[in-house]
């Protein structure tokens, strides 16, 4: 699948944003995070900013963005519509929660309820995003039991690493928070490795034989219906060399997981002012790593239409 930057950034940014939002909603709601004005402004600003930037970016993928409002109508059948509804709906409690925190300086009572609701909304939204991909049967690498958890885990992971960096930055961090984000990063790493392993062994029942209805033997593409690349090949015929993909997997492991783990471990051990700097670095490095991960998530996904083109 063509890794369009608009979509790569969209899913990565909203994933991190919703992860952060959910953690803020829960942790602030239960009082684990102080209702500090600047902390509230910046962390909620970052969470909602990432979400908004992601959603805005996603409209860059649309042919007719001015009609985007129509996407809220088909929530009964479409995960994309559900995502749209959920993402917008989540803004309501998230906005109230942010206002309560920042303007009223409180995260308890009804504000806590809105925080919890925002967290629920975030989880639902990320789930719908994951389901958009997981529900696509023509793309075997996505249509698997690994996809939905991956979206949730990576959202929680990037959100927690961000939150840890924020808390550290405001000197309200804790070893527990570092450990939590470290743990989630390790879970994310493990999940990614497991996904790759699963995809590597994937036996896809759809072949050039079933695609053409020509039973038995081999079916080789002789000539395409067109010489130059068309929409199908540009959008769904993206190919990445095995060597190139292997290198990118190493980069992902390094940036999204290994380096953040190393930095967080160090942050766990070292005192202020090292911990905030290392935590921030971990968040930035991981975000970049997750952009690469998402790019490869698309690049390695093989759509069945490519079978018609002998790819």
């Amino acid at each position: 699948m063509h890794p369009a930057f608009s979509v790569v950034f969209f899913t990565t940014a909203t994933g991190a944003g919703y992860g952060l939002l959910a953690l803020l909603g829960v942790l602030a709601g239960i009082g684990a995070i102080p209702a500090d004005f600047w902390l509230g402004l910046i962390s909620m600003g970052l969470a909602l900013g990432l979400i908004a930037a992601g959603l805005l970016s996603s409209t860059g993928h649309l042919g007719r963005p001015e009609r985007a409002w129509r996407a809220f109508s088909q929530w009964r059948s479409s995960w994309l519509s559900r995502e749209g509804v959920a993402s917008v709906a989540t803004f309501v409690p998230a906005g109230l929660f942010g206002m309560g925190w920042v303007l009223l300086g409180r995260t308890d009572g009804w504000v806590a309820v809105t925080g919890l609701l925002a967290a629920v909304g975030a989880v639902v939204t990320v789930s719908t995003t994951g389901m958009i991909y997981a529900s696509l049967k023509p793309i075997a690498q996505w249509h698997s039991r690994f996809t939905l958890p991956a979206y949730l885990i990576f959202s929680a992971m990037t959100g927690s690493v961000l939150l840890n960096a924020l808390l550290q930055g405001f000197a309200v961090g804790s070893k527990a928070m570092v450990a939590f984000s470290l743990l989630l990063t390790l879970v994310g790493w493990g999940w990614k490795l497991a996904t790759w392993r699963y995809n590597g062994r994937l036996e896809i029942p759809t072949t050039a034989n079933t695609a053409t209805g020509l039973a038995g033997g081999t079916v080789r593409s002789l000539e395409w219906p067109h010489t130059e690349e068309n929409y199908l090949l540009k959008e769904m015929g993206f190919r990445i060399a095995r060597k190139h993909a292997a290198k990118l997997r190493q980069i992902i492991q390094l940036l999204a997981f290994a380096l953040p783990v190393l930095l967080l471990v160090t942050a766990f051990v070292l005192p202020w002012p090292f911990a905030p700097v290392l935590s921030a670095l971990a968040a930035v490095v991981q975000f970049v790593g997750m952009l690469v991960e998402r790019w490869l998530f698309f690049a390695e996904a093989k759509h069945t239409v490519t079978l018609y083109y002998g790819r």
Partner: protein
Amino acid sequence: MIQGPPRGANSAPSQRPLADTRAPDEGDGVDTSPDVSDSIAKTTCYMCACRCGIDVHIKDGKVRYINGNKDHPINRGVICGKGSSGIMQHYSPARLKKPLLRTGPRGSGEFREIEWEEAFSIATERLSAIRRTDPKKLAFFTGRDQSQSLTGWWASQFGTPNFAAHGGFCSVNMAAGGLYTIGGSFWEFGEPDWDNTKYFMLFGVAEDHDSNPIKIGLGKLKARGAKVVSINPCRTGYNAIADDWIGIRPGTDGLFVFALIHELLKAGRVDLDYLLRYTNAHVLVIQEPGAADDGLFVRDGAGNPLAWDRVAKTPADATDADAKPALTGNFTVDGRRCVPVFQLIADRYLHESHAPDAVAERCGIPADTIRRIAAELAHVAFEQTIELPVAWTDWAGRRHETIKGRPVAMHAMRGISAHSNGFHTCRAIHLLQVLLGTVDVPGGFRFKPPYPRSAPPGPKPAGKHVKPMTPLEGMPLGFVCGPDDLLVDEAGTPVRIDKAYSWDAPLAAHGLMHTVIRNAWAGDPYPIDTLLMYMSNMAWNSSMNTVETIAMLTDADEAGNYKIPFIIYSDAYYSETVPFADLVLPDTTYLERHDCISLLDRPISHADGPGDAIRHPVVEPDRDVRPFQSVLIELGARLGLPGFVDEDGAARYRDYADYIVNHERTPGIGPLAGWRGKDGASIGKGEPNPNQLQRYIDNGGFWHHDFSADQRYYKMANRSYLDFAEQMGFIPKTEPIVFQLYSEPMQRFRLAARGHGRVLPPEAECDRIETYMDPLPFWYAPFEEAAVDLQKYPLHALTQRPMHMYHSWGSQNAWLRQITSQNRLFVYHRTASSLGLVDDDWVWVESINGRVKGQIKLVDGVNPDTVWTWNAIGKRRGSWGLKDDAAESNRGFLLNHIIGDQTSADANGKRYSNSDPVTGQAAWFDLRVRIVKCAAEEAGFTEPQFERFRQPPHFEPSPDILRFGAEFRMKREAAE
């Protein structure tokens, strides 16, 4: 429900509209009944040579949509990939807009626009000087011309013998091979009996002509479950659906056919009765080596060929229906030893050198496969005989209660034709059909009227006496019956610039357009002044040896004068040839013109009846262009050519439309056969009818006459048909047409080579004439194959046009070029791996003539020793309205660059045109190559590359985006 029986080819119950075509009440707001067109014009397609009937839907003065005409005898409502893309041809950005006069060097593309008056005066002045001095200094050659009865007549009235269309480099071997044998040919002049055939054999590339009729026919065979056998090195197109694909080695089809004949003879599976009735198998051939009449027929005093009556034991008139002729034996008549033709056939093809085992390796076909196919042919022909319950009467008055048929049919075209042994191979296939008794019988190969004609047909080529201001005594093209008919002077030098009807190519029935540029450049046999060409891309894909051809077009003498002094070219589009013209006459598109698809030329007949058709303007040109035929008629009038002016010197015809209606070639016979006579009541012969064109338009653009059931088969000997043919002027007399298995005209050339007769070949030509003018078909290795080092050039190389582009000039067509804008070289898997090549590699394709670079694609379905590519996809930068980055000029390649236009020098140092020695047919498919992987830095782009053509004045850049059709929708929605 639809009233009446369903019309058209696609009318099976599974192809009809819904029983109830009322739109369901879906409530989704879809307009299920949008307005389609303001008017429908029925005319004839010109996207290729097939000439289908089309319905052109006009909306707001624009062409909205084109579909097939269901009533039309050629396409019966279907339409091909080209026909459906006609809109893009019509609105092509490469259309010329105004007459052009060259200002820069030839080939640069620098022109200035001129008015038509200036164009006419330049041409008239030049041509009239030629006509006053030496008319043959005008060479007039046309390409995809469908008006040869006009253009040939124009040349004849001008007085130049130097006229032909492109048949010489197309498929004259098919025409001549058939016409000299059975008086008809494959091509589009005959067709398998699609409704009755049970076994169909298809030889070689055949996607070029008769395209929709063949496709419709293949569909019928498939629907009936008839067996389709294809003999073709490439498993594409029609061959893809064959039940049996025989991946033969190119150029060996003749050997394969002789092996089938060998098997059939040996097993006694030939139709002796058919041979006796319809062929010259029983005619006695003189066997007196050294004599002046050796190999000629034994004739009586009246000149009738004789046979041996095996009952009376005396010679008998071979046409005597009551005689009992012998087919074998040695006889003596008037002291001359002689044998029946059939004896010679048996002697030759029963020889072990024609046995399957002897040819299997060379053909690349297992001997068992050859034997199996021979057995299948015999089984279907003799065990599955069919009989139509229709009584008919033969030429001799014998009544037959039924029409009997042997349901084996064959078709062959360019794949057989484009070899230097194609003429004899074509004859071999006809011989096979005739031995099986399957020509013009139910289930067999059928003639389309006006064929069959006598083998060969009557008129001889004119041009022996070229005089200033004097028309030729006949048409420039015709059929020779012996050396006396050749167009050569006392010294044996060719009269024609293309050397047609000379010792180089005695039976050159279509001329040799492919030799004109070289011969004119070399002044061999003489220099010319003006080359007038129409619609043929001779500076690119219609020439062999493109690079040298371009050089010859631009070569100048020491004084700076071009070796070919003046070139006038008419084309509708900015092709690769336009920039080489000195004067460009812009033609219209096919939707803006009149044309006639004439019985005098290439009609649209069906085996069940004759037909012809017209084109008429369905949209007005938006440019200052004129139809070439009208321009030619005006030029004829300005030159004062006889026939083009009245006694007072005034133009006789206003334009082509006027000519179509009022021209009479012989009294009562004109370009169109339908609705003749003042009241339009006659067919074939009759006075001009002033309303004729309207009658055609009213009838859907065509005329067609259906034979009665008893006229449809055995046309070569069917009295009712022959009477009709004589009335229509198809044949001069109601005599039966006798298939010439043994060709006496060819033997006459052999005798000349042996020193007999009035017109003798130059000494150096004798061997060649002796060898190739064999009166019975034989096989020899294609010339290039015989001349090159096969170790060095181990592969055959072929080209074919993709079906969606055959004859269609598709690369300017925004839709067709999307399908194919780069051609690959297709290479057999194992052949590639033995050369270390993998898919998508870039290779040099090298022949003795040069090298060209392209990208390969590996395939299974090809003869292992053959590589092939789609032809004419590679284009020159600056032509056809294509942008500089178009794949056609960057990655597509033209194999023509490495196909020689001449043979290697013979023992006398002479180089002939790369053609069949009998007919002059260009031997495109003789090419031998090797392929070599190119260096890494050479990959990704084709070579040779050519300088970009400048664009004509006022040419706008081609659009970056095409929204064709949006306007119709906008208008529709605005109206709602």
